């Protein structure tokens, strides 16, 4: 109790955490519950590193994509290290973008096109593409586009897409990179992850171990409340949230642009996971996880169960 180590990754997705941090919300909610909480922020990059940090007990709250989360949930289920979702970072779409004018649908790709995703084959983005492939080409064809996939981090892929002149013609992107890329007239959208998952989806979640919640109920509650408050605040104050993001991140990006990203009508701010069960089903079907959850509630903490997630 009283100490909270939070791992945060890079990007506008995590704006609620920026707000949380800047406004001292955890400390505030801690005080309301009668404890002083010392918060430590740790920057990590990549779901693998975040999972390792959580498993080794180096952090208490992890934040990563739904893919890495489901992986660790699958592996720790029923053990002392079992993890569950505390809350999601809102629903945000991932776009498949291309600068190849001939590509209108996913069926138009040829061998000349290379599709960049982070961690080809295993990242959230790669899974989305595989789901799209399954839907387009029929069951069993989930990996049909895998040969076109190449591993490239978002910034490099975005730069390649905008700049042109490389083999990378397509990118399954992420905010704010997709917002940046779409500003370029040469780049257009092929599909959104919302199309694939059949509605809004939360690609990123915050999670912790069941054990931590049991052993630190007050700290956990303070975080949960603060996270909820921050998410709500972001939803209501996008412009100020953008400024906070720029300040905390010491970003060189224009706050107006961040505000634009945050105000995207497709983005909704909610702690409740959306589209996750579909994702989990898919991962189970292709063998990436062994457990098949029957409901999204199986891998989230009770606090969220009253809401209608998916």
């Amino acid at each position: 109790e009283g100490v909270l180590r939070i791992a945060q990754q890079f990007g506008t997705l995590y704006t609620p955490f920026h707000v949380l941090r800047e406004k001292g919300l955890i400390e505030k909610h801690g005080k309301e519950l009668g404890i002083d909480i010392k918060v430590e922020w740790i920057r990590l990059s990549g779901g693998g590193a975040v999972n390792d940090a959580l498993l080794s007990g180096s952090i208490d709250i992890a934040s990563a994509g739904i893919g890495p989360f489901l992986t660790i949930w699958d592996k720790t289920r029923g053990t002392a290290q079992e993890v569950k979702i505390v809350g999601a970072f809102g629903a945000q779409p991932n776009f498949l973008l291309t600068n190849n004018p001939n590509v209108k649908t996913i069926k138009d790709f040829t061998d000349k096109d290379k599709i960049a995703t982070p961690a080809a084959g295993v990242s959230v983005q790669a899974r989305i593409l595989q789901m799209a492939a399954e839907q387009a080409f029929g069951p069993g064809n989930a990996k049909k586009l895998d040969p076109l996939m190449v591993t490239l981090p978002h910034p490099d892929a975005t730069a390649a897409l905008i700049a042109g002149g490389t083999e990378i013609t397509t990118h399954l992107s992420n905010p704010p990179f997709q917002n940046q890329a779409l500003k370029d007239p040469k780049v257009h959208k092929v599909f959104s992850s919302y199309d694939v998952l059949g509605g809004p989806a939360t690609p990123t979640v915050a999670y912790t171990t069941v054990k931590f919640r049991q052993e630190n109920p007050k700290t956990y509650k303070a975080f949960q409340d603060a996270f909820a408050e921050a998410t709500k605040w972001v939803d209501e104050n996008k412009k100020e949230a953008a400024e906070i993001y720029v300040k905390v991140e010491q970003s060189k990006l224009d706050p107006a642009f961040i505000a634009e990203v945050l105000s995207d009508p497709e983005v909704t701010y909610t702690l409740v996971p959306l589209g996750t069960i579909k994702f989990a089903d898919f991962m189970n079907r292709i063998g990436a996880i062994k457990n098949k959850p029957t409901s999204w509630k199986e891998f989230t903490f009770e606090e969220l169960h009253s809401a209608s997630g998916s």
Partner: protein
Amino acid sequence: MSDTTVSGSGLADAAHARSTETVRPRTEAPARLSPRAALGWLWGFTVVRRAVVLAALAALWQVAAVWQSNPLLFPTFTDTMSALASALSEGDLLPAALASLAVLVKGYVLAVALALVLVSAAIAVPFLKEVLLTLTAMFNPLPAIALLPLAMLWLGLGEASLLLVMVHAVLWPFALAALTGFEQVPETQRLVGRNYGLKGLSYVALILIPAALPSLLSGLKIAWAFAWRTLIAAELVFGVSSRAGGLGWFIYRNRNELLTDRVFAGLVTVILIGLAVEVLFRAVEQRTVRRWGLQR
């Protein structure tokens, strides 16, 4: 080890430590052995000593892992071995390892050849040496990540870029080791070569390379290790279309799926290949620099 039992100080030390013992036996087993003597005799074989070291490390690993009891982060030795066995039998690991090795050897040979050319030029022309040293000082500390955009622009994705990154990893350190080696060649041997009219390439090949062989071999070993490190890291970040993954990809994929025992199986494969290469280097050293008395 030197093949001279009477190699000066080394022997003197040994004599200090156990002046009553006889010289360590090498090939012929004593006709009749006490159990202790038999152990001593076995101990005389490098293979045996190696095996003991490896077994001790494995035991240490097992104990640490069991004690830590966190299989998702640190699987036991036995778990890793069974994962290795299953990965091998599933035909997953071997092609990955071979794919990596193929790229590795290509990049390594390319970089070493390039380094030798550059260093030879640097030896012949003082100004080029300055250029080489400047380039090395500049580029050697740069992480591969720095080359990514340029490699992509100019070489596209795929093997060419991977090779560029590997050459970058290997070229500079090996060039440094080779240059130092060449510059350490004793003056007299240099003069002998010149005296017989050797110049340019034949001077490098017939005098500098054999005379600097200890430094070159040490540079090759270091370079080999860095080729591996870079390849595995680069396969993750860069240039792998998901079809033809190498060992790095194997490790990364399994790490992403938290199949830690398989991750360690991949790492053990790297270690085993490293040991095999070390045996090779050792054999070369035994036949060259140690035989020639250039290195003890």
